[in-house]
């Protein structure tokens, strides 16, 4: 939209065009303008990524409610897949990090994190869809929620003073304290930062690579590049599906791990 001429020269700006957020909803050639809202001096405008996030959320809620609606003791069909994931998250993520007793308390949060990220990731792979988790504001918010969970759970279990005291390794020489306190504090902040960047970069990178392969056709301006471009793009696309699941899993796992570390600080 900015410069057609520039696109002619570099061929790369159309990639950026596809992965950055806009104040309009891009459905192929159709650009639907979205409302600008300002509340309490904050620009609360609806953006394309936000719409995609809402679509993903709606899809997520509808899918889960419909698939798990008719519940007997024996699940069937899609509910089986949901349950398999639920059991996996409970037995392999929640229980090892929180222990048998506390695991069920954190399960709804972990499940929501997993499925929310998963649906946002996968929505970007559907035509006209965009990846909301490819927006650093979104991933930062999710990481912030994880960080809040870490602090909340840590302070709840160890007390406000106990939690921050527990960050510093026990039996440390006093002389090292001026060094260790900022380091440990930085270490605490690094965790959500890594979560944020990891998810953002992974979601962004896959799309950039796919778009680059497709872009080669237009850069070389020859149809003979197309088979290779499409083959590689297809391979990347399949990889993206895998990465969509993987990153949702990684984010959930690391969140559980970090929250668990804040609860059991002796480790």
């Amino acid at each position, binding site marked *: 939209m900015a410069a057609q001429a520039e696109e002619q020269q570099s061929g790369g700006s159309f990639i950026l065009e596809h992965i950055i957020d806009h104040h309009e909803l891009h459905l192929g050639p159709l650009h639907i303008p979205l409302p600008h809202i300002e509340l309490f001096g904050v620009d*609360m405008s609806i953006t394309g990524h936000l719409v995609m996030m809402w679509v993903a959320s709606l899809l*997520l809620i509808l899918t889960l409610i419909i698939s798990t609606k008719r519940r007997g003791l024996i699940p069937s069909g899609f509910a089986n897949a949901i349950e398999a994931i639920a059991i996996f998250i409970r037995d392999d993520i929640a229980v090892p990090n929180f222990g048998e007793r506390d695991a069920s308390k954190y399960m709804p949060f972990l499940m929501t994190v997993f499925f929310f990220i998963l649906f946002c990731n996968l929505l970007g792979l559907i035509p006209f869809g965009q990846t909301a988790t490819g927006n650093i504001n979104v991933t930062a*918010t999710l990481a912030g929620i994880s960080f809040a969970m870490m602090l909340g759970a840590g302070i709840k279990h160890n007390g406000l003073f106990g939690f921050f005291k527990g960050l510093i390794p026990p039996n440390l020489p006093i002389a090292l304290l001026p060094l260790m306190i900022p380091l440990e504090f930085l270490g605490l902040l690094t965790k959500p930062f890594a979560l944020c960047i990891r998810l953002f970069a992974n979601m962004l990178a896959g799309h950039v690579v796919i778009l680059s392969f497709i872009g080669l056709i237009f850069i070389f301006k020859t149809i003979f590049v197309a088979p290779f471009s499409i083959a590689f793009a297809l391979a990347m696309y399949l990889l993206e599906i895998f990465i969509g699941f993987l990153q949702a899993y990684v984010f959930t796992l690391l969140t559980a791990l970090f929250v668990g570390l804040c609860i059991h600080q002796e480790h």
Partner: protein
Amino acid sequence: MDLLSPNPGLIIWTLITFVLVLLVLKKFVWGPLLSALDQRETRIREALEQAEKARAEAEKSAEENKQALAQAQAEAQAAINKAREDAEQVARDVQARAEAEAQQLLEQARRTIQQERNQALQTLRQQTAELAILAAGQLLEENLDDEHNKKIVDDFINRMPEHS
């Protein structure tokens, strides 16, 4: 908009969206789903425990059956052995009694024979004596003194060999 430009509005919207999704899913999906999971696991665990118990019971009763069977077999064997021994005993008794009876009969027969023989011999001697006296009397035509004659004949008879 830039790739890394912060957008406070989007951050707030994301937070609101996530919290809403979390609340909705927690109420309508995770609650029922997780409780159903727990319920099912409890039920499966109970069913397994019950199956285990039933198996143990079945094993126990099979063991008992086996023992009862073995005991019955042993009893039957003992009864058979006892019956056989009894029968053998009876047979032995019968045989012994029969043998004894036969022996007794034989003995009796032998005694009777001996008696008869003795009696016959006695009779024979007497008749021989009488015949001899009669014959001698007729031959001599002489009425001898009975006492004297009898003595002579008795002596004669007594001189005869005992077993002839």
